[in-house]
């Protein structure tokens, strides 16, 4: 009689990695999605309007408080959402631990750097306009 028939499913799952942070990831992905349902249509509509008038009109648009705030919120929700999404894609397709860890770190760095660059740009335009 082999030992394996007395093993519980919990024993089979143990040692294969943490299962404790999945819920947080799942909820974070969906809450940022709900924010983006509102922010993305606003962004599309506003950017199309802003691009038409050339550089001066675009700067004038960002210099207003509401567009500036909504732009930073859109950037925040987008970057958070895309970082979580890319994390899952990397975890699904990259099996080698070293390469997977390197890409996960790169993903975090790239997303956070992107948010910093957008936020600084919006602030510069907003403050530069003397608001």
């Amino acid at each position, binding site marked *: 009689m082999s030992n394996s028939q007395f093993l519980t499913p919990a024993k089979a799952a143990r040692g294969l990695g943490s299962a404790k942070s999945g819920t947080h990831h799942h909820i974070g992905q969906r809450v940022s999605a709900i924010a983006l349902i509102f922010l993305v249509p606003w962004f599309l509509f506003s950017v*199309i309007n802003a691009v038409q008038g050339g550089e001066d009109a675009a700067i004038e648009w960002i210099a207003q408080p509401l567009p500036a705030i909504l732009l930073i919120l859109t950037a925040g929700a987008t970057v958070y959402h*895309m970082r979580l*999404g890319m994390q899952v894609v990397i975890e699904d397709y990259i099996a080698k631990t070293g390469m997977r860890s390197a890409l996960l770190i790169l993903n975090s760095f790239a997303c956070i750097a992107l948010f910093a660059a957008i936020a600084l740009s919006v602030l510069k335009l907003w403050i530069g306009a003397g608001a």
Partner: protein
Amino acid sequence: MSGSSGADARPLSPHLQVWRPHVTMAASITHRITGVALYFGTFLIAGWIIALATGADCYGAIEGILFSWVGSVILYLWAVAVLFHLVNGIRHLLWDGPNIGFDPGKASAVSVFNYAFAILGAAAIWFAAAGL
């Protein structure tokens, strides 16, 4: 994390080839592909705002790319990807939250709708923007 250099001995989900192809499956794959595409697209769109803050020369160069033939194609595909990921994402939220739209007929119909919405919606935005 096991710390080994090889692949972890985790269970695999069934490979794609064992399923009969259907439109809900296509929508699911497209959701992931558009998600990855939008990841890189966000860097491009962010380039517009960063160029605006950098100065007139930089913005002029970006504007030149945006309104070029290649830029227009990329922007149109970006709009399609945004609309598909948005509308299919709403469907995912309806699946996850109130458990709406799971029966096969409805799921297939919504998948077809999502493709049509993305392609026609992007075209509608295009003509609306051109008319401004």
